[in-house]
């Protein structure tokens, strides 16, 4: 039996204020040591993206970029790519989704560096938008026209998952799970498709639904995980224009071939109204599971039975 030849290694670390859990299923031709090296490389992707894109670390490339107003700054690919992607989604949603929202997040109390405990309070006004971010694709430079705090929270984790997954492609199967946002490759230790549960928003140990995934990412955004300390009704997804958190959808899970796409879409979909939502899902070509306040699961996107 092929199945008996499969082994599994699982490692868990903390990055980006999140538990990052990597499972690898490998065949007997791999040594445990070599598998572990690849897993460490996958973890390094998270370390790299966090050190580069964190708005909680004054020395991060992102915060150094924020300190330079009105000039074209050469930017490393680790920052350039997720920023460009976030600005594209911002443009497509007409600013409903906006990576210039960092200052508003700080004001809502999402201002604490989880490692040092230090609180962030940047002296910038909070009216900048994605339109003040100019991306020069040819020279890979970024110009910020106004002072702002960039927030790549909606795409950077997904990007790190995608980068980590590259190191694990050769194995029989793997999961890179960063706090419930994950990419699934190959099959599980028995050779079956991975089955992924979707967390019940109220009961920690329950699943509200389950999906089978192959070479796909699934990312869930919801207001139930991170609440604001300052406003009981506010959570970590904030509408730029109204400054409040959406409540008509409890959580939104997006299935896509890339975690950065799934991650960005899930946040954007929490913010978009129902009428815009459908069009957005069609444009992105993703599969979406929305959870209403009365806990009904609504599946949108082509071919509900696939993936």
């Amino acid at each position, binding site marked *: 039996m092929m199945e008996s030849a499969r082994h599994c290694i699982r*490692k*868990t*670390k*903390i990055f980006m*204020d*999140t*538990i990052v859990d990597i499972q690898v299923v490998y065949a007997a031709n791999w040594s445990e040591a070599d598998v572990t090296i690849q897993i460490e490389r996958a973890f*390094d992707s998270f*370390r*790299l993206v966090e*050190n580069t894109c964190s708005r909680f670390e004054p020395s991060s490339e992102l915060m150094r970029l924020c300190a330079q107003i009105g000039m074209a700054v050469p930017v*490393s*690919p*680790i920052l*350039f*790519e*997720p920023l*460009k*992607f976030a600005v*594209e989604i911002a443009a497509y949603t007409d600013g409903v989704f906006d990576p210039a929202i960092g200052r508003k997040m700080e004001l809502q109390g999402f201002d604490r560096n*989880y*490692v*040092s*405990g230090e609180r962030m309070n940047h002296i910038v006004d909070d009216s900048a938008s994605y339109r003040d971010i100019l991306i020069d694709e040819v020279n890979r430079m970024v110009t910020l026209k106004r002072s702002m705090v960039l927030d790549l929270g909606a795409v950077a984790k997904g*990007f790190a998952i*995608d*980068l980590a997954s*590259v190191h694990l492609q050769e194995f029989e199967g793997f999961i890179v799970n960063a706090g419930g946002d994950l990419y699934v490759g190959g099959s599980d230790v028995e050779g079956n498709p991975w089955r992924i549960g979707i967390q019940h928003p109220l009961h*920690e140990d329950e699943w509200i639904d389950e999906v089978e995934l192959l070479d*796909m990412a699934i990312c869930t955004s919801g207001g139930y995980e991170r609440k604001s300390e300052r406003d009981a009704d506010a959570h970590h997804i904030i509408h730029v224009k109204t400054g409040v958190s959406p409540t008509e959808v409890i959580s939104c899970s997006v*299935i*896509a*071939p*890339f975690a*950065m*796409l799934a991650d960005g879409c899930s946040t954007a979909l929490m913010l978009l109204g129902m009428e815009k939502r459908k069009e957005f899902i069609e*444009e*992105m*070509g*993703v*599969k979406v599971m929305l959870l209403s306040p009365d806990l009904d699961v609504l599946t949108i*996107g*082509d*071919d509900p039975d*696939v*993936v």
Partner: protein
Amino acid sequence: MAKVNVKWALMCSAAIAAIYASGYYATINQAPKDGQVLVFQNGNQQYKNGTFYGVGSNRRGSIQVAVTIQNDQIVNVEIVDFRMHYSIRDVVGKPEEVVKRQSANVSNVSGATYSIRAFHDSVVNALNQATRS
């Protein structure tokens, strides 16, 4: 597979390629890693080098950690097993904090007393095993 709008998926694959296909990854990979460049005070090594496992448990469950020590520095703390009756989110950030503070004493989190205590005990347990006799 669901059909994905080529534009958005292409942007994602181009983003990955920008890191790995451009040679950029090879350059950054040689740089020293952040958080691991720490200086220690005395020449007499207090701890053995290596990875040591520690368990902390109380009536609400148990946590197992792997603490890696190099030249008396705590360079990595990993949660190997988490069996508390509370969410693992309670101890999120704590392994990093141990590395930064170089000590098992981590800041408390409200409502997570048992998890934090078990986490603290597991790190102390691992350090005890690493201590030179």
